[in-house]
């Protein structure tokens, strides 16, 4: 391993321009990465972070600009070339073969051969050595399907190291990790840099940048804004630079008395599509005027619970009571009429009919009601007027997008269309499932504002989220779901990230 010298430049990207047709995704971006440095790349969704990294990793050729690696100007026109230059990328979505062992996954594509058979012994030794050296604690013989998400990510990191990478690109690495796993990841990054590796960290999570990064390059709408020393800036400073205006993080919320119980879920059981029981006697309740946060790691039964509450999944046992009336296993339409509205987990699959216009999407549950239809005939004037009003009220951009297909809007604005519709539906119970997933800071602020506003109007809100920060900042009460059951409950103001994290991982409270 080369001697660690923080003044050695390992990557210098100069004036990188990447155009797709008329659209400029990267507009003269500069980036300098030193040896042993953790360099964060911060930007909203669609700012051009991923494009820049894909240029570096040889996925897209840049329209103009130069890339230097270790002082030499290079043309990287294929990922293999990037790998040869010691650049490795850990993608946000893991690319692992589930039934294979860790070792088999790591050697995949470059299997060491011994005659005609694969020589895994040697590879296994090498992996063990790497794992120890960087404190990755990976068992080379475990099957991927048996190990946690955090461990899977470490396997991805090992895969890159095994191929000799000195420069690691980590794309949104914390997206599916628990708080403990995130802390572990940050430790691993420190081990890597101490050993002379350099890390490019793509993220829009400011907290992680503060925790791990030395420097941070901010990109906004494809343009280079600045490169700053992380130590000299606060989270608010960084957020402001990212979105181009001041952002408030704290959610304003007055204490208020709760009213009657709106939703009561009793001893709910169900199985997923494979027939595996995923809800094992789950009970919870939500009252008027409170936000109940359901904290938990993905895959502990949240999807099925929300599915049952919105009519898309059937319960095998148990009861759902809404305003004192049993509504178990009713159809989606009936549940809506009884008073449940929902910001769905997957906005493109469930929340919107993407080829429909914004105006059409805004009446998805109400198309057959006055004033939107009369005698089975759609009333375009009313449908459009409704859209115009909501586009204005909810600042859906671009302005005047009534007749644009919803699929052509950005993710944040698609979410605004759904929020506008569900908030305007104004039902007794609002279920929000990962309502800010993939959104940038500005849009998150917007969504949170409306959730709190609905709570203040004495609506009952069930917030299901994999983002613990979101749960903690919004909830009046937090239930923790693990393995299909509620395993603990805390008041919003008493919430402690580590205690919640332990419960989410199935440990004792």
């Amino acid at each position, binding site marked *: 391993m080369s001697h660690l010298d923080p003044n050695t430049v390992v990557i210098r990207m100069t004036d990188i321009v990447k155009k797709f047709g008329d659209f400029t995704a990267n507009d003269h971006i500069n980036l300098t990465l030193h040896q042993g440095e953790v360099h964060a790349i911060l930007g909203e969704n*669609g700012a051009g972070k991923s494009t820049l990294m894909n240029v570096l990793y040889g996925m897209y050729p840049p329209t103009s600009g130069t890339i230097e690696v270790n002082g030499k100007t290079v043309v990287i026109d294929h990922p293999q070339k990037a790998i040869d230059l010691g650049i490795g990328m850990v993608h946000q979505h893991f690319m692992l073969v589930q039934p294979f062992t860790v070792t088999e996954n790591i050697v995949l594509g470059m299997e060491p051969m011994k005659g005609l058979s694969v020589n895994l012994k040697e590879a296994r030794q090498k992996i063990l050595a790497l794992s120890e050296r960087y404190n990755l604690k990976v068992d080379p013989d475990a099957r991927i399907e048996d190990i946690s998400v955090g461990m899977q990510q470490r396997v991805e990191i090992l895969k890159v190291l095994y191929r000799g990478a000195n420069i690691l690109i980590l794309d949104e690495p914390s997206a599916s990790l628990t708080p403990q796993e995130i802390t572990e990841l940050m430790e691993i990054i420190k081990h890597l840099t101490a050993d002379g590796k350099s890390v490019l960290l793509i993220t829009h999570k400011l907290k992680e940048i503060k925790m791990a990064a030395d420097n941070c390059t901010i990109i906004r709408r494809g343009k280079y804004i600045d490169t700053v020393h992380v130590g000299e800036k606060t989270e608010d400073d960084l957020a402001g630079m990212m979105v181009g205006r001041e952002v408030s993080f704290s959610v304003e919320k007055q204490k208020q008395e709760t009213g009657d119980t709106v939703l009561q879920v009793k001893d709910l059981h169900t199985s997923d599509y494979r027939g595996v029981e995923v809800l094992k006697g789950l009970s919870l309740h939500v009252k008027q005027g409170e936000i109940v946060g359901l904290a938990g790691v993905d895959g502990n039964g949240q999807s099925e619970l929300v599915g049952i509450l919105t009519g898309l999944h059937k319960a095998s046992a148990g009861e759902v009571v809404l305003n004192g009336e049993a509504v178990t296993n009713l159809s989606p*339409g009936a549940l809506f009429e009884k008073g449940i509205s929902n910001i769905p987990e997957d906005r493109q*699959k469930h929340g919107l009919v993407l080829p429909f216009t914004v105006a059409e999407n805004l009446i998805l549950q109400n198309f057959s009601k006055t004033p939107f*239809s009369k005698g*089975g005939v759609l009333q375009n004037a009313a449908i459009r007027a409704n859209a115009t009003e909501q586009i204005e009220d909810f600042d859906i951009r671009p302005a005047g997008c009534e007749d644009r297909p919803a699929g*052509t809007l950005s993710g944040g604005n698609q979410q605004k269309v759904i929020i506008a519709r569900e908030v305007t539906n104004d039902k007794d119970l609002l279920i929000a499932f990962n309502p800010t997933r993939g959104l940038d800071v500005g849009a998150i602020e917007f969504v949170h504002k409306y959730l709190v506003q609905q709570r203040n109007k004495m609506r009952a809100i069930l917030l299901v989220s994999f983002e613990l920060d979101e749960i903690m900042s919004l909830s009046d009460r937090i239930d923790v779901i693990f393995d299909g059951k509620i395993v603990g409950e805390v008041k919003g103001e008493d919430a402690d990230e580590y205690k919640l994290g332990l419960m989410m991982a199935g440990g004792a409270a």
Partner: protein
Amino acid sequence: MKQKITSSNAFYTFLSIIIGFVVGAVLLLIIGISPAEAYAKLFSGVFSKLRYVLYDIVYATPLIFTGLSVAFSFKTGVFNIGAEGQFVVGSLAACLVGIFVDLPAILHVPLCLLAAAAAGMLWSAMVGFLKVKRGINEVLSYIMFNWLAFYLSNYVVNIPAVHKEGGGEATKNVLDSARLRAPQFLRSICSDTNWGFLLAIACAVLVWFIIKKTTLGYQLRAVGHSRTAAEYGGISSNRIFIISMSISGALAGLGGAAQLLGPGARISQFAGQEGFGFQGITVALIASSHPVGCIFSGLFYGAMKYGGSKLTTIGVPNEVVNIIMGTIIFFIAISHVFRHILHKRKEAAA
């Protein structure tokens, strides 16, 4: 935005038509026939006389109906490859009512049409029930139902009470009161001229209205675009599938009636499938499933069929028309692929 997409649709279609003719020309050259001569013959066979134009329309009428039928099913994401069978049972129902019920024309024609629509609807709805209740892919059962219709029709044709007396492999003629024949002055130019074309236009406008302007159309399109989002919004996609497939079947059934009550008058025993339903798929694809577009693409296909039938007089195999139509469809299909790729690239950039 919307304008841009539709205009580019028309652009790709137009381009595909040109390519279709170019490919046809190449094949003609290979077999040693002058494309210029063949296309001149085709063109004059289509346009040079009023009589020809009226025949184009006669040929186009059933194709507009089956085109509408297929286009309607596409809107809900169902592929009605069974328009062929629905056309046949529609024709059969109209034939039986036309032969055995004796009413004044003002009642007789609507009754025949109604019977045809009901028969087509039933034929398609059965496939719908199999899809919804048993999860059977509609393409499979539609194809089987095409053959059921085929043999049912041949069976009925040969029932003594239905069969034409004194030879001929066909049914009796329907009563004159059931015919859709146009007034004498038009029939003196082209004896097959009939009201079916106007009925087809009316159906196209009605279909357009249903799809675009009604709550039913909203639900059809929602299910067609995204079944999951439609379900989330409280729309029962199973119900919508049944409705959509029923209406689609009714349209094909009406096409069968229009053909029978117009130029047909009787049903002959089939040696093979006539292909009106399958040609409807082409019509719908060329029209990008737009109901009003189906009128024009139906006229185009009808004219090609009629004009193509004259090519044999100059020694050109009229299969060249099928090759041209096939090539057009091929390139329309490819244009979607191209557009998809372009679209993806733009998305990746965003």
